[in-house]
């Protein structure tokens, strides 16, 4: 479980199946804005399996994601795609 303000890194995995971690946000370090409830993991539900997990809004700097830019981007990420950073 993560809390607001925690530093997290997204998974680098590039699966062949459906997933909701956008390519531009993989392997990136950001900070948790807030936990946003528990929802079925799309990777599994797209294959007919229900695995419910916490989901977090994570804020990244554009510099972290693209190497440039002065804005932020937030992505909503399921817990199994995150690790502490």
């Amino acid at each position, binding site marked *: 479980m993560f809390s607001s303000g925690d530093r997290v890194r997204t998974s680098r995995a590039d*699966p062949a199946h*459906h997933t909701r971690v*956008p*390519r*531009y946000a993989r392997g990136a370090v950001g900070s948790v804005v807030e936990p946003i409830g528990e929802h079925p993991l*799309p990777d599994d*539900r*797209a294959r*007919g399996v229900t695995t419910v997990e916490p989901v977090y809004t994570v804020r990244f700097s554009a510099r972290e994601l*693209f190497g440039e830019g002065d804005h932020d981007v937030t992505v909503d990420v399921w817990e199994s795609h995150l690790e502490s950073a």
Partner: protein
Amino acid sequence: MSRINDVGGMTGFPGVVEELDEPPFHSDWEAHVFAMNRALIGAGVYNLDEFRDAVERMPPAVYLASSYYEKWLHGIQALLVEKGVCTADELRVQQR
């Protein structure tokens, strides 16, 4: 193996063009594709992630050349065949 739908951050796309006073749907068939998809998900024929998955599996060149609701119709038909609701042959409009 990121799929063609995963375009966030990609370069090379043109400017964003806004259509003034755009209606919710441009034609009846778009509204019907939209309504059919909701009904099929509501009836439990497939779920939303299976639907997204079906659209994402489109061949990249077809995906990029298709309008939004054309992509949806493609995804619906792929799932109807995969779920055994009907066959690919049945989905083909009869030539008259």
